[in-house]
């Protein structure tokens, strides 16, 4: 409401009205709004205001849910490949080094016993070990909503008209742009297509702090990691549509992810990939 008054004063053209799918009639929810800008020039020009869906961009700031998501993203891909060999797996050691008794030495049966130097390990690290687990869908969905809400609440979420085929690919231009708009140290651009062309593509190759991501790569860690998240209008539509579709899906939100159900899919994932340098695993 406040934003729309501002908009009227600044004479912005686009209207805020957007059809928000299954929006609750809750009077205690205010529809979040964001400015619509573009990336054509250094200065920020406000093209209009966009309504955002309150179920995605205005949820309770549950930092604990966010924490669970961040921890999961850090942990689930860890694999420990270290394998310390036991007495049996070390080479040699089959012979009794000295007689059992009457030598005054310890009673030992093998030079690879754990008490020996260069012996096997008794309670060593026995990899490969994985920390893989799946968070429930509900937690992952809520985590994304919380992350987007936090970014929007702290004014670090910006919506632009278009990211494709921009004219200017000069890194200086992009640095000035982000500096004049106060976008912080790192910027993440999210577009709905996974191919990006034009100025942004050229600039992001040279600037380490500027990154692009397709909508399907959206994750809590990246959203929080970057100082500013910039969504294109198409990406915004897609994100809302995907998240709401899952929030309102007919299937339960506590689906079980069992390895046996996905085994065939995972094992066949790389079937199409043929690396000319590496022999395939048969």
């Amino acid at each position, binding site marked *: 409401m406040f934003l729309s008054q501002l908009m009227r004063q600044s004479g912005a053209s686009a209207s805020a009205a957007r059809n928000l799918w299954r929006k609750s009639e809750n*009077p*205690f929810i*205010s529809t979040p709004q964001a400015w619509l800008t573009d990336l054509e020039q250094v200065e920020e020009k406000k093209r209009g205001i966009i309504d955002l869906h309150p179920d995605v961009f*205005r949820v309770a*700031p549950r*930092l604990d849910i966010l*924490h669970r998501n961040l921890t999961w993203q850090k942990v689930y891909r860890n694999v420990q490949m270290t394998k310390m060999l036991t007495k049996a797996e070390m080479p040699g050691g089959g012979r009794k080094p000295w007689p059992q008794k009457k030598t005054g030495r310890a009673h030992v049966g093998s030079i690879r016993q754990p008490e020996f130097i260069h012996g096997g390990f008794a309670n060593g690290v026995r990899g490969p070990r994985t920390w893989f687990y799946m968070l429930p869908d509900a937690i992952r969905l809520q985590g994304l909503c919380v992350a987007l809400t*936090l970014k929007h*609440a*702290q004014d670090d979420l910006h919506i632009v008209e278009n990211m494709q085929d921009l004219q200017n690919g000069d890194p200086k231009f992009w640095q000035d742009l982000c500096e004049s708009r106060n976008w912080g140290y790192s910027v993440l651009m999210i577009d709905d297509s996974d191919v990006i062309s034009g100025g942004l593509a050229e600039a992001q190759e040279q600037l380490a702090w500027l990154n692009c991501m397709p909508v399907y790569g959206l994750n809590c860690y990246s959203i929080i990691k970057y100082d500013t998240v910039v969504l294109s209008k198409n990406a915004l539509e897609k994100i809302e549509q995907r998240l709401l579709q899952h929030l309102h899906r007919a299937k339960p939100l506590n689906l079980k992810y069992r390895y046996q159900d996905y085994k065939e899919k995972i094992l066949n994932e790389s079937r199409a990939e043929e690396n000319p340098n590496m022999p395939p695993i048969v």
Partner: protein
Amino acid sequence: MSQALRSAKERALQIVEQASKIRIQDARDNLGARTSGRQVRKANNQMGHTQGALERAAKPPLGWIWGDFFRPWQRMFPGEKHFNADINVRREYIPLSLIELTRLIDLGWIDPSKPIDISTLCRTQKFQINPNIRQYGFDLTEEGADSFPYAIDIEVQYATQSAIAAVEKAGGRIRTSYYDVNALEAAIDPKKWFEKGNVVPQRKAPPKTLIGYYMDAKNRGYLADESDIENNRINLANIRGYKLPDHEMVTEPLKTVDQVFHGIPAGSVISLADKKLYSPTNEIHREYYSKQVADKQYS
């Protein structure tokens, strides 16, 4: 806006708005959400004696609950000779009460004007049937029978007399029918079945133990004579003391005894991408799928 501010959520978000940028290290779990392991004192540490102590300890005989070790209660008071002896062969039916069915219709999950069968119920994603653990379909129970208003055409695998009466009182039609494991697998997830490119199966005849149930007009079995069922319907109305509606409310034809899906012939393959249905031209296949005499099946 002022109204929204009274909400705890909005106040929390205001704090967030005024706070400095929230970074990865600021995300914390709630206080007390996770407790670290308690340090066990040496005297109380029970670690270390597990295997041998358990193995060598004197243990009561299997099934012992209370009383004399050597005369457990199930031998003192023998009720059943083999308790749960048929657990690996008995069929399980998922209970579906009439009140649940009414709620599903009320909330738009099920269209009461169309015939309701396993596929219709399973496409709501509210029920899980696993034929691999001998679940054979739905059991319509009478909870909510007093006020069941919809004239539906329903096909379940088992139904109580009260449930049958409630459906027929409302002007509906109910049949109990048997799905063999293969047909059931197709019926519970038709999309998966079609995408695999499987042939729409025939329903096989029920096993010997169930043939009696499904040929009984009292149970509205699908193998019973339609005239018998009609007589039984009137009979049940007289016994239970309700009035049947004057005209037929359900006019759609019934499935044939070997049909799994309405309107889709057995033996055909469906392409969901092209929205086309193909049937075999081979004479042997055609004959097999059109003879309508269900195969013999043992289960």
